């Protein structure tokens, strides 16, 4: 799948409420093809909420999220990868079975599983049940679905959690390659991952400005 060079994510006047509490309102930004956006701000300011709202898990109380130039038949979520705090891997399946499922289910290519495993330094572990992996290896396996199925928008929530320095570098390289192919990435992160973080959106400062 070749990512359309004109694709862009447009978030317009977005407000998300959890129960009666408005987490944020009036949020608007654009992410163009090949661009990354880093969400920063203190804990509880709504970084995860924003990522989940873009993925479509949370309904927008107001405003819209759209992928201009994307596949009109699919929702924004179906054109995104969302990697949250949980890895979404099955402990009783082996590494390669997990990868094959991602590729088959998410509409990817089985041929990509080998390259995903080698890129994330999991190639030697292919026949090991995921339950035996360390926390960092599990995280890498969870991130491998970004490679198994190609999608234009990556939504990464603290992707570097439990990754060592070498693995963070691999992740940085993956995101940089994705951006170079014309993809987009939005990441909530506290650690700089070296993909040329691009634009920064400080949700904490926005909330402070609202309070004034």
């Amino acid at each position, binding site marked *: 799948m070749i990512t359309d060079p004109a694709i862009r994510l447009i978030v317009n006047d977005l407000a998300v409420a959890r129960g009666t509490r408005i987490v944020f309102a009036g949020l608007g930004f654009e992410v163009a093809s090949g661009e990354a956006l880093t969400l920063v701000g203190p804990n509880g300011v709504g970084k995860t909420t924003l990522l*989940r709202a873009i*993925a*479509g*898990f*949370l*309904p927008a109380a107001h405003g819209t999220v759209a992928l201009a130039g994307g596949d009109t038949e*699919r929702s924004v*979520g*179906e054109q*995104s*990868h*969302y990697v*949250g*705090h*949980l*890895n*979404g*891997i*099955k*402990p*009783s*399946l082996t590494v390669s*079975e997990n990868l*094959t*499922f*991602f590729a*088959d*289910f*998410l*509409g990817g290519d089985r041929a990509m599983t080998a390259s995903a495993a080698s890129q994330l330094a999991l190639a030697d572990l292919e026949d090991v049940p995921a339950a035996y992996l360390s926390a960092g290896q599990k995280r890498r396996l*969870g991130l491998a*679905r970004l490679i198994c199925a190609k999608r234009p928008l990556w939504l990464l929530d603290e992707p570097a959690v439990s990754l060592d320095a070498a693995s963070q570098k691999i992740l940085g390289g993956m995101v940089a390659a994705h951006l170079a192919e014309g993809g987009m990435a939005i990441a909530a992160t506290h650690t700089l991952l070296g993909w040329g973080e691009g634009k920064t959106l400080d949700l904490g400062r926005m909330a402070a400005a609202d309070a004034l």
Partner: protein
Amino acid sequence: MKAFLSLIRRDLRLAQRQGGALATALGFYLVIVATLPLGLGPDLNLLSRIAPGVLWVALLLSSLLSADRMFNEDYEDGALEAIALGPLPLELVAFAKAIAHWLSVGVPLVLLAPLLALLLNMDGRAYGPLVLTLAAGTPAVSFLAGIGAALTLGMRKGGLLLPLLILPLYVPILIFGVSAIDAVVTGPGGFATPFSILCALTLASAVLAPLATAAALRLNLS
């Protein structure tokens, strides 16, 4: 279609690796059916008369034991989020999950039922209808269990709430399943009428239950 089949294949493989769900269900089925005669006393005629009903009720309870696992594990390890963003609509995810539950738990229970019928001295003419009605009715059992599993997602002790929510929905299946068997053994009605209604219930639940399950899943993902 590829995504649909890959989800069923994965769930069957997980059920086979973990094994616990099936063993618990089969063991529970055996224990209920084996304990009941101890409580009722050694009246063979009585046992033989109530055997179809007992086998049906015990099967419903046994299949509910594993029902809360249908979505809970995927919810807890985050796989459900990845699945929700797949190309497959959640309605079809619910359908695939129910089929996988039926294949991994329902079918083995149906195969065990005629063996347990021996313990209850069931009438010889009832064996065929018993297996037929169970085979036709158990898919509905799995489809409806999916609604309960999705509603109780992430709830502590959700496994206890699930039977309360879902057992009432099993009443029509139970009534028509058992009356089809009774029709063969004691008459006077025909087997075809209650059996057709049972099949209709299964088909209706195959269409409607995934809609409810998907709605409950969306609610729990937000």
